[in-house]
Each structure stands twice: as C-alpha cells, then as structure tokens.
C-alpha cells in the first residue's frame, strides 16, 4: 500500500503548490510560530474581539428566545420556518468544503489540498457547530428537543422514522462525529510537534495529552496513514449524503417549491459551492495576516475558484431546472410558485440571488480574476450572501404562498432573527480565531512532504 499521502509516480505537469525555497525547517517554523508566539498580531485581536462580542449577542438572543418563546422571531402561521432553518442549511452547506477537501481530494490525490485542509476541516466543524444550534433552538420547546433522538424511554415512544427531521439528526450527528474525528486524527502528528516545541510546560502537557503519545515511529506512521485513509473513505459518502438528507427536509414536503426531485444533487452542489466560498473567505485574509502566501499560493486560489465556478454552474442549472419543470408540469401551483419567486413580493431577493450566485461567478472564467485575492474575495462574499438568499427563497417564498391564497402571509425578520444569525457568525469567528491561536492552521507534516527534498524519485 502506498503510504505517502501525496507525490509519487509520473504524471502530467502540475503547477507547484508551495513557494520556492521552503525547507523542512522553514515549513515547521513558520507554521508553528503562529501558535508558539506569545504575542498575536493586532489583526488577531481585532478578529477575535469582534467574534467574541457577536458570540455574546448570540447568548443574549438565545437566552431571550428561551425565556419568551419562538414568538420573538418573525415566524408566523404559513411561514413556520424562516431564519433558523435558512441559517441551519447555510451553515451545514458551508461545512461541506472541509470534508470534500479532506476526503475526496485526498482520495483523488490532489496535493494542493494539503495547505488548506486543516483549516477547512476546522471551519467545517465550526460551521456544523453553528448549524447544530438551530435545529435545537428553533423548536417551540427546546428543552425537549432530545426527543428526536432514538432512546429507549419509559414511555416507549420512538421518533418517527418517516420524518426527514429524524434523518437530519442522524445525518448531521454522524457528519459532526466523523468530521471531528478526521480532523483530530489529522492533527496528531502536528500536536506532537507542538508538544516538542512548547516551552511552557503546561502547554507541552496539554499538547502531549492530545498527541496520544505520538513518537513518529514507522509503525505509528503506518497505522496513522491507514486510519486516515479509512476515515477519508468513511467521510466521502457523507459529503453527498448529508446535504442530500438536509434537502429531504424540503423535498419530502408537499409544498410547491419544496417538492422537487432535483433537490439532493442541487443541494450538494450548492453546499460545495458555499463551502469553497467560505474557505476562500477565510484563506484570503489569513494568508495576508500571517504572511503565508508560500503555502496558500495563487495556484490554490485558482483551483478553489475553479471548483466554485463548476459547482456554481451546477447550482444555476438547478435554478433553471426548477423554472423549466414548473412550466413543463402544467401544474398551477408550481407555476405560481416560480412566478411568485420571480415577480412576487420577495422578487428582489430572488434576483439578488441570481446576481450573487449566477452572474457574479461568471468572472471566474478569467484566470486573472481567479488569482486576484481581492476580486476573488469580493466574489466569495457575493456567493456567501447568494447561498443564504437561496435558502431564503426556498424556505420563505415557498411557504408564504402555497396552496390556499386565504392563508398567504408575509414574513419579516425581527431583530432577534438577525441577532441570532449574526451571533452564530460570532461563534464561528471566535472558534476560528481560537483555532488559529492554539493549533497549527496548516498541516505541518503534510506540508513537509511537499518540500522538494521530500520528493521521492521513482525507480523504474
């Protein structure tokens, strides 16, 4: 079995994904210095500060929600789901890039993934954490939300296994578990490095505990590689399954705009699309903040932008298909649904969505744009917003006008809806900055394999 995760065999030319002049030492030093240094750059403090303030906003919003009830949100009788579910799907979607990069790109031997997989995985975990809050707090009685879990209670009542929400529980919790495991396993060799480099005995102790006694022996490496590959194999179907199942929340419903067979692939493409946009949103400022352009090169940006372009086009195809089938179905309700999306009271949201997700990414056909951090960052922000709007269109515009015109009603968010959403951004940012501070954001041991000296010349 080929033990090295990367680099071997003859293959077509691949552009370099590591800056020139990097050696084993420089890689390790530069990456671990972010963690080792006692004083973080000012940007870190600002970023963490913003995140922390917003995290407190989340705590306030959730406390008030628990104290007063779901009524503080803008949800109403036809529109039973709104921001909470939009945010849930949005965050889960973002979470997909991590697994895709770690697992699928690993199996496909895309070595450029090495410099981004660590923080992409971390981002995944944090996004899933943000997402996981919503299904719990959006219930009317969050203190009994655990009833969705299948456990042998004295009342002998099981969850309804026909309900997509129960499938969600399994899908998301599996995804969170495997992602966390994958991330942690990938961290072990680097934790050992940090343990060895730590000057503070407490830090050394903590890193040591989590390094699980890693000594870098060949046997360790052998088992490690096997475990990592196995986990990659386990994660791969999850990339497809999780968002497919999330899409069932809608597709299983009877509501026009929800009840569509295209949803699973369309959601998965959208998730990867959103995920890569978020990876770039984080990578571009980071490489500037810590001057790690040698690790996250223009080539990386280019690759990720290509993935975005591809998945973005798939998503647009989804929009076209929805419209086409509404017309082709000759179904009054479906036709009205599309017409209402495009020209109803939420028309601006729909066209903004098309602008963000469909039009803005057309710039990515140009390599100069793909390699320009500024342009790319702007486009990623468009996509981040666009993907959120897409879920708004699906959730709210479908619900607010369904079958019975008598029950049609508008949905408007309240400050609590917005506060909770912004609060989860705070949670995400806080966790991300803590991660940057305490763990190597780029996989050191994997980066070392990209150093020219590590290249193994194959013998024939």
């Amino acid at each position: 079995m080929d033990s090295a995760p990367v680099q071997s065999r003859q293959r077509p030319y691949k552009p370099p994904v590591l800056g020139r002049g990097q050696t084993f030492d420089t890689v390790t030093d530069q990456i671990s210095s972010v963690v080792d240094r006692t004083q973080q750059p000012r940007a870190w403090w600002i970023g963490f500060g913003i995140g922390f303030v917003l995290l407190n906003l989340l705590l306030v919003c959730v406390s008030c929600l628990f104290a007063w009830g779901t009524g503080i949100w803008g949800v109403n009788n036809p529109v039973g789901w709104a921001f909470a579910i939009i945010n849930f799907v949005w965050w889960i979607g973002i979470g997909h890039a991590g697994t895709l990069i770690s697992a699928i790109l690993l199996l496909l031997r895309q070595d450029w993934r090495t410099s981004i997989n660590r923080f992409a995985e971390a981002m995944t975990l944090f996004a899933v954490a943000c997402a996981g809050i919503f299904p719990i707090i959006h219930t009317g009685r969050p203190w009994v939300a655990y009833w969705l879990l299948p456990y042998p209670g004295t009342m002998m009542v099981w969850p309804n296994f026909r309900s997509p929400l129960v499938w969600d529980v399994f899908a998301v919790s599996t995804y969170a578990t495997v992602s966390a495991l994958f991330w942690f396993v990938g961290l072990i060799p680097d934790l050992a490095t940090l343990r060895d480099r730590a000057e503070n005995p407490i830090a050394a102790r903590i890193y040591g505990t989590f390094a699980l006694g890693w000594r870098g022996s060949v046997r360790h490496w052998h088992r490690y590689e096997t475990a990592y590959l196995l986990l990659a194999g386990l994660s791969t179907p999850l990339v497809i399954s999780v968002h497919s199942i999330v899409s069932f929340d809608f597709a299983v419903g009877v509501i026009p705009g929800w009840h569509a067979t295209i949803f699973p692939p369309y959601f998965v493409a959208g998730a990867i699309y959103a995920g890569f946009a978020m990876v770039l949103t984080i990578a571009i400022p980071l490489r500037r903040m810590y001057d790690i352009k040698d690790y996250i090169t223009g080539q990386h940006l280019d690759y990720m932008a290509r993935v975005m372009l591809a998945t973005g086009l798939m998503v647009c195809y989804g929009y076209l298909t929805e419209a086409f089938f509404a017309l082709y179905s000759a179904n009054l309700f479906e036709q009205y649904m599309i017409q209402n999306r495009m020209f109803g009271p939420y028309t601006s949201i729909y066209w903004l969505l098309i602008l963000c997700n469909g039009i803005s990414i057309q710039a990515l056909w140009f390599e100069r744009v793909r390699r320009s951090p500024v342009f790319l960052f702007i486009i990623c922000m468009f996509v981040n917003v666009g993907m959120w709007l897409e879920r708004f269109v699906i959730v709210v515009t479908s619900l607010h006008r369904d079958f019975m015109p008598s029950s049609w009603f508008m949905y408007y968010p309240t400050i609590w809806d917005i506060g909770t959403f912004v609060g989860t951004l705070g949670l995400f940012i806080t966790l991300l900055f803590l991660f940057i501070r305490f763990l190597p954001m780029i996989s050191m041991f994997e980066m070392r394999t990209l150093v020219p000296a590590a290249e193994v010349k194959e013998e024939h």
Partner: protein
Amino acid sequence: MGFDPEAPAFDLTAIREKLANTTGRTYWRSLEEVAETPEFRDFLEAEFPAAAESIATSLDRRQFLKLMGASLAMAGLGACTKQPLEKILPYAKQPEELVPGNPIFFATAYPLGGGAAPILVESHMGRPTKIEGNPEHPASLGATSAMTQASVLDLYDPDRSQVLLRAGEIRPWADFATAVADVMTKLGPIKGRGLRILSEPLVSPTLAAAIGKLLADLPEARWHQWEPLGRESVREGARLAFDRIVEPRYDFAKADVILSLESDFLFDGPGQVRYARDFSARRKASSPSASLNRLYVVESAPSVTGSKADHRLALRASEISGFARALAAELGINLDKPAGLAGRAGWVSAVAKDLLANKGRALVLAGPSQPADVHSLCHAINERLANAGQTVVYTMPVEESAPTPKDGLDTLAADMAGGKVSALFILGVNPVYSAAVDLEFTAALTKVPFTAHLSQQQDETSLRTLWHIPATHYLESWGDARAYDGTVTIQQPLIEPLYQGKSALEVISLLRGTSTGSDYDRVRDYWKSAVSVPDFEVFWRRSVHDGFIAGSERPALDIAVRPDFFVYLAQLPATDRDAGELEVVFRADPTIHDGRFANNGWLQETPKPWTRLTWDNAAMISPALAEKRKLSDGDVVELQVGNRKITAPVWTTPGQPEQTVTLHLGYGRTRAGHVGTGVGFSAYALRTVKNQWIASGVKMRATGVHYPLATTQTHHNMEGRELFRTADIATYAARPNFAQEPDNREMVEGHPEHEVPSMYPDWKYEGNAWGMTIDLSACIGCNACLVACQSENNIAVVGKEQVLRGREMHWIRIDRYFEGDLDNPAVYNQPIPCMQCEKAPCEVVCPVNATNHSSEGLNDMTYNRCVGTRYCANNCPYKVRRFNFYLFQDWDTESLKGQRNPDVTVRSRGVMEKCNYCVQRISSARIKSRKEDRDVRDGEVVTACQQACPSDAIVFGNINDKRSRVAATKADPRNYALLAELGTKPRTTYLAAITNPNPELVADAKATNQAAEKGGQL
C-alpha cells in the same frame, strides 16, 4: 422624589383606576410606573411601612425590590391551591344528577336586543362553560349566533364590575338601599315626577310588569326604552302602514323570491338564527331539481346577507328609498316615481317581474337602517303581492311595552338638560358612550342630582353617575325573556353571582320598596298570576326545564295596510337626495355589536365578514373611491359631518357603493376594560339624532398618517384554484357532477381523483370513521362556528399585535374570496377546519410522532409530545395548524379558569394545535355507547361548529355507517374534496355552492354595474 410624610391617606381607587386605564403589555410596565406616583407611595406606607421608609429615606432601589419581591413571592405561595389545614370532608351525599366529570345542561335564555336567544348551557361542576342553542325552541332549533356563543366569556371577564360604588368609593348595598329609600320618599308625594328609568327595549315580561307597576304607583315617573341600534324605523314603518305598532315576522321557508332592502336578516336582529336556518334550508340543492329560493339584496354597506345574494345591488343608502318606490311603482302601486332611474331600470323591472311571478311566495323586507317610509312601502308591497300571511305575518311587538318615540332617549336628554329629572336609573345601557352625540347626554347627566347605573362593567356611564351598581350576568340571575317570535323562556341561573351583582329586577323592586324576596320568587309569582294552568308546579317545572313556555309565541294578527296609506303614498313626493356627495352609513359592528362586547376577546379577534378585520373598525370605502383619493388600507382619514370630525383608518372593501363610507359602531370605548379600551375609533361621535343611520354631505380628507389594521386574510383572489366551487342552477342541471371535475387533472393523469398513488398502505377502519361535510350553499359566513370552537376548545386569544404577525389561533376559519367585478364582487365564504386527511402530510413529517392517525381516522395531536418544530404546519396544504408562538393562553387570571372546558387541554407555549373534530365529544359518546353496549348513534356526536351553525351547513358523523346523514351528504353530487389532486384524501369535504340567479339579470348584470360605476345614481 418629594415624599411628604404628612400626605393624606392613600387613594386605592386612583391606583386601581390608573391600572384599569392601561391595556395589555403596558399593564405590567405601569405597575412600576405607579410605584413612582405619590398615591402608590402613600399606599405603600400604609401596607409596608418598612419599604416605604426605605424608598423615602435612602431610596435604595435594590432593597425596595428585595422587599417587594419577597412579598410578591409570599403572595404567590399563598395563591397555590392546597387543601386547607382544617379537617375537610368529601361529598357524603353527592348532589343529585351531579357526576364529577359529566357536564349537565340547563335551558335558559340570553336576552340580547329585541329578542332573547334561547340556549342550553353546559355546566361542569357548577361552572357554566359553553353555550348551545336550545333545539326545542323555535327561535334556535339548536343553533346560536357568534355573540351568544361569546356571552359566556363575559361572565368570567376579569374586568367585570365587582363592587357597588358611590362616586368611586366602595359602598355596601344597604347604603344604596337607604339612598334610594330617601329619594323615593321625596318622590312619592309628587307621584314620581322627576323619576326616570332608562333601559333597553325590554323583552322580559316580569321586569316590564315590575316597571309597569312602579309607573302605576308613580304616574308622573317615566320609563325610556332605548338602544343605540334601535329598531325605531321598523316600528314607525309599521305604524305608518297599519296605524299601530306591529312586528313583522318572516317565514323564509315559504319564500321563493326574497328582496332585502338593507335587511341583514341572516346575521342581525333577534330572528337571525331561525331565519338563517329557514333560508339556508332552501339553498341546499342536493339534486338539480331542488327548488332554490332566490335572494336579491340592495344595500349600501356590505353585509352577511348581501354576500349570499344571487343578485346584489350596491346603492347609496339614500337611494334605496328611491329604489323601493320605483319597484313599488313597477308593481302597480300608485306613487310618485323618482326621476333618474335610467341605470337600474333593468334591475327594477326584472325584480318586479320575478316578484309578480311569485305572488304569495315572495318577500320584500327592509333593515332597521332604512327609514320608516321604506318599511311601510315593504308592507304595502307584501300586501299587494299577497305575501302577507304567507311569508310574513304581523304580531304584537316582542317587547312587552313597545318603545314609543315620545319616550325615547332624546326626550329624556332634553328633560335632563331642562332640569326636569331628579333621579335617573339607567339599567344596562351605556348612553354616555353610545347616545347620539348632539344629545349631549354627558352634559345633561350632570344636571341630574341622583343617578344610578346598573352595568356589568364600570363603563363610561358608570364613571359619570353617582351610584354604580354591578349587574349580574344573565347566567347568574333569574328572569324571563321573549324570543323574536314572542316565545318566553324562563331564564334560570347556573351559578351564584360571582361578585356582588344585582339584577335589574332587584333594582326595580328596591324602587318599589319590595326588596324582600328573591328574583326567583318574583319571576315565579309573575307567571303564577299570568297563566292559568291547573297545576302551576308542573307548568313551572316543565317551562324551566324545557327552556320555553309552550304556546307563548305572539300570535299572528289579522291586519291589513290601512286603506288611506296608499293615498298617503301617492301624495308623498319622491325626494331625491343629491347623489353626488359622500355619505356615511352606520352599522352595528359584526362582532362587538354596539360596543357591549368590546371587552370580549373572542369577539374582538373574530374576523369580521367581508373584511376579515380583527381588533379594529375602519372606514370602509369602495375600491373606486380609494383609487380616486389615492388611499390605501390603513391610511387615516378625517371624516367631517357638519362641524363634527373623527379620524379613522380606511379599509378598501369591494362591494361598497362608491360614494358611501361604512362605519361600524362599537369601537373607541374609553372604559371597556383591558381588552376593549382604546381599541378602534368611535363612530358614535358622528351620529346624531337625525342621522342615526345615514349622514350625508361628508367631507373626507387624508391625514397622511398610517395605522396598522390586523386582518387574518391578506389575499382575496382564488388565483384560479378550484377551492370554492360554485355554479348556477342551470349549470348544475346540465352537469350535476361539475364539482367533481378537478381543474388540475394533469397532476393525476391516469388516476381518477382520490386515487393518487401513495407509498403507504391505506388505513383500515373497523368501527367508526368520522367525517364531515360543509355545505357551501348553506354557509352564510356568520362566524358562529368559529366562536363556538374557541369556546369549546379553550382556544387562546392572541391580541392585535400577534394577529398582525399572522399568529391567530382559530381552529376553524372562514376563508373569504372575492370573484368578479371589483365594485360588486361575488363573495365566497368557506369554513376551513382540519381536513383530517387519510394521507396526512403532517403525520409523516413530525419527527416525534406527536401527530398520529387514530383508529377512527382523525389526525390526533398529542400536545405533551410536541416539541414544536412546526414542520407539520409547513407541510399542511390547508394551513389549519396553529402554533403557540408564545404562552398565548392566560394561565394566571383566576376568573378565566372557570370558563375552560375541563375536557380539553389548555395548551402551553411552543406546541402545535389544530381542529380534532371535537375529539372530547367523540370520546364521551364512545364511552356512553360502550357502557350501553351499542354503537355510537348517528347524530350522537355533534361537533361544536356543527352545533352552533345557524344555517345547518355542517354535517358530521360516521362515514362507515352508510345510513348516516354524513354518508348521505357525501353522496351528494356536489361533494368535493379540497385539493384532492394532492392525494391527501380529506375527511372533511365540501358541497359546492349553487346559486339561483335570475336569467334576465345575468345578461344585464354587467351593463348595470358599469352604469353604477359611472353614474352612482338611479
């Protein structure tokens, strides 16, 4: 904070008043606010000296809060329900008939306006909880109106007046008795000159007799009968035509062609429940050969009756008189026809032709909002058409002593202002709020030295009278009352007065100096002397038990229109008003009536017919006028009549005549209680003695202010969906199965309707399978079902702010769609309860199995299990599920707990709820049938909505029983399921509405409406 230690004694009344003047959420905020007032600090010092000291000296807020917190916590502990420490004993002897858990029903009557509603009241362990109609009584036949349903809530209203007050201070009844004795001593020698009694027109024989005796003793005293929505024009019209005051009573069962001139007979007035039943019975076209009646309505304000019309003509109120004259002329009555009939000539002649073709089977009637002339003309027309004696009979007035114009409120006000009144007793009515504004009743009241007001609430009038006497609720006191046809019900109480309430009978007895004895004795004694029966005890017991005195209805009088009336008519000139100017018409509010229900949350939150507005009245204007004046819903306008002005938000109402603004009375109360104070605007402020119903020459000016109005339905177009299916009788005859031809056939290509494929196997029902049909031909959209459901199922009131946010909780709602011409559309009312789908989309998606299919086919809700994901509501195509976004139920107010149905869970925050076909009633019938070892009989389970429905539109039962009534209605060719193409297989189905238009007018309709748009005149 200038605390003065030598401040006078605390004024609890002021504090109470301050609190009483606040509403809703601010109530709690103001508790803190009053803490800052001198009154509160004084009060505090008396009650909690330590706290007062700390607040006064150190102003240590923290310590103050601590102290207050402790006392409040103690108070809370004390309020917990615990058994007393003393030894208590359980029932040694259970009271006869009282089985804990089983309700008992008592027959009684609800006196409202010109006729009582005969009812049965459900009592749980001594608590009246629910009103039902008395099925034996001809005025009810088991049905009730929405207001009657809601009247039980008034009993438990926490804002009810509880104590007797003199100038705002609490006094015992004995003080009042002494004061009255003093007054009467002075009045006795002068034969009662200066003594006045003001009441509603009374339908209680005992009370009227008592007042009659008082007046006999004191011949100079006078009794004024008045109500704001009085029927003076009805009485005056009868007097004009017959030279005496008689009451017309209609028989809609016999009427084939009906022309209503602003009469909202299906919804308003004492006979509405029976009229709706008789009318609707003639609309149920279970086969194309059924003989349907035909209804023409000419009206200036959208009404429930108007929405059922086969032909509705929207005219300005002042033009209706001209219309009536034109029609009369067409029917051959010699009179001066108004000019300018051009636009509507076709209408008039078609109606006339139709009426003539149905002589003896036609009916022309007018509403109280039309002047006496129109009423008298109707009598003349009915006589000409030989309808009198057939579809209409004339009886003695229902009131014991018919109110006369000389004893109206205007004479009283004039006498008061002139100092001729020394003692005024007001029984029940609220003239300070609702009297015609030019009477200046409030000012006149100050001229009366002794005033006393008996009312259930400390209302606007109570505030300005010397004495306020808390009144008993009708469920608390003995009495009697006549229904619309005169049939008497002995009104028996179900509960001892909750507070220190007194009845009108007690007050009158006090005046007569016969205050010993009880109301029970008084009523009994009256009937003992009034009837001659061999065994009074048997008569009494039977009458009380049955809820009516058999044979006590007013007999039909054999009278004819006086011959010289036609001469009079011929001489009367046709007066054409200036048709160009804007007109205001006043109407009773469709939910809170004249304002008496302003503090009733159920009725406040009931969406009004046509507008679906809740919690507010509005100036209803036509779309054309809105367009012309560039007004949109909620824009506040100033309406000026003469020099009087009010501001009101407008509401665009299709079907409103262009130059007419409709104002609903009853809102803008300043002292109604926490629910009703300050809600809406008072249209009484424009209402004068002369302009009781119509005010012309109105100026309307936009103010630029916007006011949010809470409606439960924002979209009025069916968007081409076949939700409400309707056809005229000709189409029905040609295609009897028209209702079952689905529009969205494409979706189920290859599958007949109801056979959409499903992943899941069909349910099997061994025993009962409950189902419902709703006959849209019969439904009039009166909301009785909605309020009945609210009462039966402990449904919370959410308040205006939550309705604005789309969170009303009604389990059954009335969808209302408009179709056709914007200025005079067809109106479709469709009650929507839960459909109880066989393949319920809600059941599949609930993650915790909180909503399940029962073995009898219901979608049961398990509130305890619900976690509140709202997925079921999202997935419900009919949108019948309701979510408790907040703790909408009032869990704290003690008095409201008494009203709750103990068989229905009081839901908490965060759970979903919906209609369950009154599963508690199904269960109780099932238990009963099992005990008796038999099946549940057809008709044994009656849902609350079905029971209340005046038009008998709802049928419920076991569809497995092929002989059941519901099975028969499901076999009706008009039967169709809502959104059947989704494959939900609803258990609730609808019978399509059949209309019976006049073929001559159908072709003419468009032209007529266009003319109406242009000219706005006859």
